[in-house]
């Protein structure tokens, strides 16, 4: 490895915002914004797994796709290996894509049904490197075995595989360029538990083998906790808590995190722990509440919560919370 000594952070996100315009009325003017990601900041250390967790509509997928630059950020900065990649385009963006790859949620929609598995996995290699056909084929065969598929998968089509196997194909494709960062957006939520555990184990072992940094996005906190070193909890476009996985589970600070943990049904009928039931639904991100985004549902809301928006602050070592209770 001839890598230069760089900062321990592979990826840094600063005040990232992604708004989607809402259009309507005369000439489809812009009449508002959906604030999908509203000011989030975090960093990924080299080699770690960072989990982003939250309910549907909290902006976790938008965050993942903005970081991979599939979407253009509204404002904020993204640094990858110390370089600002927020507004790069053309060949620089193309080059960056080699290092950041993505695994998608739906293994039925993310693979082209008309392409052979071999072509799907070799496409990124052919696009980015000048290698002979034979070398590409050997490399792809090697990748397919690494993700636990038989070699004859090369000549088959996606519909011939089960959901779990398709997700393995998606992983092989993401690995093809030997990226440094993989953004996995709900990679197992479409799978059954038994297959889910196979894919999670595979991701973990490949991470070691390929020395990968993972941004793992999911709604299932128990899956995220199993996979991640550190976890960020998102609510309505905001990061409400960031902490080490174990610490977050043992010692949650934000009322939303507490409710989220207590809402998970435990696979043990003898567990009779008290449950925090939140009232109502997640508000619309087009019109988020003033002040703390969680205050209308928060069991510990105070009068000042509807006035000022709390900022993410370090409360304990490596444990950041955005809540006025800890101000």
């Amino acid at each position, binding site marked *: 490895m001839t890598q230069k000594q760089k900062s321990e952070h592979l990826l840094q996100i600063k005040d990232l915002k992604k708004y989607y315009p809402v259009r309507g009325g005369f000439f489809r003017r812009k009449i508002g914004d959906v604030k999908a990601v509203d000011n989030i900041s975090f960093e990924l250390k080299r080699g770690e797994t960072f989990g982003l967790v939250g309910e549907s509509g909290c902006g976790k997928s938008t965050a993942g796709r903005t970081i991979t630059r599939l979407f253009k950020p509204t404002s904020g900065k993204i640094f990858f290996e110390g370089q600002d990649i927020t507004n790069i385009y053309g060949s620089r963006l193309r080059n960056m894509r080699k290092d950041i790859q993505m695994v998608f949620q739906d293994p039925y929609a993310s693979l082209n049904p008309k392409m052979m598995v071999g072509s799907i996995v070799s496409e990124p290699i052919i696009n980015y490197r000048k290698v002979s056909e034979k070398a590409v084929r050997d490399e792809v065969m090697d990748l397919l075995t690494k993700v636990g598929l038989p070699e004859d998968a090369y000549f088959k089509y996606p519909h011939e595989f089960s959901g779990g196997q398709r997700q393995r194909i998606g992983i092989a494709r993401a690995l093809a360029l030997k990226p440094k960062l993989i953004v996995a957006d709900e990679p197992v939520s479409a799978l059954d*538990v*038994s297959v889910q555990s196979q894919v999670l184990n595979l991701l973990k072992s490949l991470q070691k083998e390929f020395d990968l940094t993972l941004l793992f996005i999911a709604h299932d906190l128990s899956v995220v906790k199993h996979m991640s070193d550190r976890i960020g909890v998102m609510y309505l476009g905001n990061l409400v808590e960031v902490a080490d996985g174990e610490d977050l589970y043992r010692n949650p600070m934000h009322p939303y995190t507490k409710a*989220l943990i207590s809402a998970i*049904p435990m*696979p043990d009928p003898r*567990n009779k722990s008290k449950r925090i*039931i939140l009232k109502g*639904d997640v508000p619309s991100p087009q019109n988020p509440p003033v002040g703390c985004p969680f205050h209308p549902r928060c069991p510990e809301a105070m009068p000042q919560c509807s006035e000022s928006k709390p900022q993410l602050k370090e409360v304990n070592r490596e444990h950041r919370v955005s809540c006025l209770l800890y101000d």
Partner: protein
Amino acid sequence: MSKNHALLEIKDLHTGFDIGGEFHHAVKGVSFDVNPKEVVCVVGESGCGKSVMSLSVMKLLPKHNGKIDKGEILFNGKNLADLSEKEMNRVRGKDISMIFQEPMTALNPVLTIGFQLDEVLLNHSKASKEQVRKKSIQLLKDVGISRSEQVVHEYPHQLSGGMRQRVMIAIAIACEPALLIADEPTTALDVTVQAQILELMKKIQDDKGMAVLMITHDLGVVAEMADKVVVMYAGQVVEQSDVDRIFHDPKHPYTRALLDSIPKMEERVDELNTIKGIVPSLKNMPQQGCRFVDRCPSAMPECKQIDPQLGETNKGHAVRCLLYETSQPGAKTEVRS
């Protein structure tokens, strides 16, 4: 009726589909009971026949290729399998009702919530429209929709997923059925909303004294809700017991593997246990021997030859596995048609 029988008795149910001229069983010889006021959860991976089983009870199988081949579904002693469509319509919604997984597709998008609720009540009672509307509003209040006077005039798309599932529950309990079948009622919902809905279902079940037959793949939900658990694999019941024993003394290798493969919050492990392979498809179902044999960590050579029978190991705890069969060699194979 004074006779002491179960509310719903499923006996040796065989349901299958005609696929390309061949008949394949999706449910093969399922038997279990649901007692009054009992919550029974059926678990298993997708493709295990859980949903087909529940659709058989409601007789909602696709008409062109699905059919109940053999077996009885006794509801209060009456065999539902023999009922005509017209007779069945009197049972559906009134005695047995059903909640589906996807509240968006289960509700009609072009009718108001009020209309869809009134419809059930009008079908099964002789009340006037005004009385029915009043009852509808009250029902929506019961399921925790506070602005129910407005919601009756709204359409499904105006409600969130959790609200829609509440409406589905309101429709299902409108005629106070004795049995509620819930097919993955919370799978499409977020955890915090799931917690709300489960809480609501428990409360209603308690208040109205309904029995609930719940289909789910989430073992956490099972632990939360069930009195009794039925574990299905490849169209058969592989284990059946009260909820405590399923989680604390599971017998069948499939049940154990299923429990081991979920990530646990309270412990940190490097590697999760897995079950190798996947559920065999209808066409590739093993014709002889145990259906789990190819994925089973404790498979023995004879597992491929002998069909295991569902036998009681303890009182109320039944397992379909040769490991627990006492009279191994003599175990008779099922009589097939």
